[in-house]
């Protein structure tokens, strides 16, 4: 039987590092020098035939409007199961901000077992790189990233690979047994319906 999995993944990082470009490249197969904010869409949806019997629907949540300046609301983070943290290799300040984004992420969303959600680090705009960049393996180990990739949204380098890596880690967690989510919460309608069973009115009586 085919199973369909829905994952909410956040794409975070400083202003102008290429978050929207990476999503556009990955989901819509396009790249542009100019982006206007996409109005009215919470996320871009990528549907992947992962293996013979698994379809993955990946919701990629971009940062909108006011949220650009860090300190995201929990509303944006809730129910996320993974994150891509992006910096721009040509601007050191965006790398310095990576840990701020990671801390904000870990403080606002965790897996059911209280562990941080898997995060992959993207060193974007690698096409603008003259010399070889330093390796980030130990940086990732020290700061809780599952892996890192040099990406270019412009030249379509490593974006698929980074996404596959993140999905693999998300799946590993999904397969390991964990404590069930608090079953008593309910949603009134909207996206969350697709991700989990929720309370219906069947159990309650009416006059």
């Amino acid at each position, binding site marked *: 039987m085919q199973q369909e999995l829905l994952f909410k993944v956040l794409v975070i990082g400083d202003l102008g590092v290429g978050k929207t470009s990476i999503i556009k490249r990955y989901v819509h197969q396009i790249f542009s020098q100019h982006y206007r904010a996409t109005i009215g869409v919470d996320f871009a949806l990528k549907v992947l035939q992962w293996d013979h019997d698994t379809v993955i629907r990946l919701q990629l949540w971009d940062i909108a409007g006011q949220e650009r300046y860090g300190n995201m609301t929990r509303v944006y983070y809730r129910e996320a199961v993974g994150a891509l943290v992006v910096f721009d290799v040509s601007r050191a300040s965006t790398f310095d901000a990576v840990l701020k984004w990671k801390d904000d992420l870990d403080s606002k969303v965790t897996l059911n077992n209280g562990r941080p959600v898997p995060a992959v680090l993207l060193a974007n705009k690698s096409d603008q790189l003259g010399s070889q960049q330093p390796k980030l393996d130990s940086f990732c180990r020290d700061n809780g990233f599952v892996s890192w990739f040099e990406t270019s949204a412009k030249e379509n380098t490593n974006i698929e690979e980074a996404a596959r890596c993140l999905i693999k880690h998300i799946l590993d967690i999904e397969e390991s047994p964990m404590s069930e989510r608090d079953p008593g919460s309910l949603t009134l*309608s909207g996206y969350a319906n697709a991700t989990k069973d929720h309370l219906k009115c069947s159990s309650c009586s009416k006059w």
Partner: protein
Amino acid sequence: MMYSRGSLVDLLIKSNVSRYAEFKNVSRILTYRHDNVEQVPCSRADVFASRQLSVVEKRKLMRFLTSCVEDTEEQQAYNGRPYLEFLRDQQLGDNLQHFLVHSIAMVTEDTPTEAGLASTRHFLRCLGRYGNTPFLFPVYGLGEIPQCFCRMCAVFGGIYCLRHSVHCVIVDQESNRCKAVIDIRGQRISCSHFVVEDGYVAAERKKVATPTRFISRAVLITDGSVLPTDSEQQVSMVTLPPIAAGSPSVKMVELCPSTMTCPPGTYLVHLTCQSTGSAYQDLSPLVTRMFHTPESHDQGKRPSVLWCLYFNMVDGSAVDCHNLPSNVHVCSGPDGELGHEHAITQAESIFRKILPQEEFCPPAPNPEDIIYDADTAEGDVLSRQTEE
């Protein structure tokens, strides 16, 4: 606290803003009588299961709740007379009268019959929409609700300038319109409309009900529930009738850790009433009786108060502003009512003044309606998008 059929829930659903929030059902309604906390049976199942009610009371309550939904001539005869009198004449007995007045209608003993019946019906209509009581509480607290509206706004291009409080406004004398605001750092921000909380409005432009109405509030962190059960995860609405003549009737909400508002092993308690004195005068006698505090006399097995805060605030529903530029719109702070009817009505009326042609909070499109297939060739996008 939200009514499951209140205008806030309706708006959240209609606008799709509800997609950003999660809720807990208030799991039980409690009341306090004769120094005792008891559960109020409100659904059919509760009434059957209740151990405080006799078989006769159960039958009477069932009959009453089924019949009160319809308007009858008998009820109309009581218009203008107290609800309590009407209930008394229904031969319901003290127990049931108490539950019906204080916990189901949530009115006072002198509320007129028609108002009492309307509240009772509202309660019954809300019951069973999502669970066993008429109330919902947002996970992480009510502060989530503005965040949800903000995310929706941001997704549609709204921009927020955080930490820029407004210092003053620039008003064009001739047109009597606000042209811009100046923030505390001296930055000028032009605007075509200015919506502001009433706290910013100078006293001489405010018409406040006299005497000014205040709300008394207390916030407690405790180490146990006022009515412990097998499950530690109860969200309780507690209705507290006046403990002495002249004292206010108080509404109390007790939140458990699964609402994500307090750490495991603790409870967060809010008490609210219309002020008759200071918050401490109004609420501390009750707190001292229901909980163990340093002021409590005995060592009964009541939950202990680990932390508490008492404060008063102006009742937002009683404030009105005048003599303001025509494009300045004032919204008031919280009021003492359960639910958020006043805030929603006000938001909608301000919106209508600014954008009379537009629909208020129309449903946001669902991103899932835009489908891009991974296997499609470059640039060839499968779009099911219907409209912008």
